[in-house]
């Protein structure tokens, strides 16, 4: 096992989620033309937490929520050692002309977001697409992609990993937090 460091504790985590939610409300007003789309698998938790907070604050319960799977849009089929498992794409609305917010937990190289854009555009032509992430790993981008909403920016070594741990994760400790691990401990 390598070293694990908590970089966001449960209290800060909650504050950060709330801030992101308020920023979205500020920008999107009544969400009438907005869709929040979580990227499978890990962006989906963040998207549902954010939409819960937004619905609580605004009193609305009809915000469009979707899940987007990008497996078939990846560009690394031949490079990968193991095959990622495909998950569900659930977009119970037309993205045509909507203001879409793509949501993921960690932004690293930007390749996932590139794939997500392709996957999203296969469903129609949104009016605009924004990106919200909990963690932005700066200086590690391989494509020209920047998020509009950022929970926390971190500058870390390329052989370290950031993991967002949700309270409901299997073999988690029941607390929302973010931790930094070195690659050698990636056996979980």
């Amino acid at each position, binding site marked *: 096992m390598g070293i694990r460091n908590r970089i966001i504790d449960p209290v800060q985590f909650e504050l950060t989620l709330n801030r992101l939610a308020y920023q979205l409300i500020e920008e999107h007003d009544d969400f009438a033309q907005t869709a929040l789309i979580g990227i499978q698998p890990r962006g989906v938790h963040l998207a549902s937490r954010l939409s819960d907070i937004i619905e609580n604050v605004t009193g609305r319960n009809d915000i469009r929520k979707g899940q987007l799977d990008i497996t*078939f849009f990846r560009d690394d089929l*031949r490079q990968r050692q193991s*095959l990622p498992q495909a998950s*569900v794409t659930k977009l119970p609305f037309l993205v045509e002309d909507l203001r879409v917010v793509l949501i993921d937990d960690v932004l690293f190289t930007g390749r996932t977001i590139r794939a997500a854009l392709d996957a999203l555009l*296969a469903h129609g032509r949104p009016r605009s697409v924004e990106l919200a992430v909990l963690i932005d790993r700066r200086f590690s981008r391989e494509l020209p992609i920047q998020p509009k909403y950022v929970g926390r920016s971190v500058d870390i070594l390329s052989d370290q990993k950031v993991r967002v741990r949700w309270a409901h994760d299997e073999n988690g400790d029941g607390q929302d937090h973010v931790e930094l691990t070195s690659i050698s401990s990636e056996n979980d």
Partner: protein
Amino acid sequence: MTELRSKHLLGIRGLTRAELELIIDTAVEFKGVINRPIRKVPTLRDVTVANLFFEDSTRTRLSFELAEKRLSADVVNFSAASSSVSKGETLVDTVHNILAMKVDLVVMRHPHPGAAHFLASRVDVPIVNAGDGTHEHPTQALLDALSLKEQFGQLDGLKVTIVGDIRHSRVALSNILCLQKLGADVMVCGPSTLIPKHYASMGVHVEHDIDKALAWCDVANVLRIQLERQGGGDHIPFFPSLREYHAQYGVTKERLACAESGGKKITIMHPGPMNRGVEIASDVADGERSVILNQVENGVAVRMAVIYLLASGLGG
């Protein structure tokens, strides 16, 4: 499990239950893809697939070709009728020539049982068996399993009867293996001349009375009478005439009504092409319990899943 153990798909026989479920679950996601406004994903952008059909086929070949195109693979087609096979070239030579043109994956249908296994032992690209003679037709069994899963949720304990020409049917063998691995109870039904004796040893029920078979089952998978494989010339036919076959074994509305008198409903499947009025009556084929066109739709999704899973092992 996220990967298949073998680099080929030669038959259902070599697959575990977990692998069958992996293919079917992946196919469900691809079915979502082919029902979107844009029915194409860029997954296999730089992969070239050769479809080698040494035996006639419309549905399977179109289905594979569509599956490959929906995955953005490059596709080349080959059919024996218009090829060097008629000039005496061997199978292995033909395939090596095609591979020399840098093909990544081969889908093959061949009239000889075991042709896909033979080829897999001699070339080193993934081979997908699209039917080898009277042996196996794995993607058909997988699409049938997907169609049943959609209808019933799961296959455990499901009673499936396969009616018709079991002797010449690769669909029957692949289906029996696949259904049994997924927990279903299988019966074969047909004239004794069309059911080889060894089928009983596979753990399936053997029934020669269609009415008893229908009374037993939840699903009837009706197979085509393979007119081209019934011998001919001096060969003694397996049944007297098509008319007699229809009278004895044709699945008709009256037979179904009788079997369903207890209140159950029988789902009707057919791998195609249908001989209407021989093994299946038109009003049954077009009836509300027929999932025949779902099977065709699922065929594309299943073949996308198989090619996707095998192509992921190609490496850089």
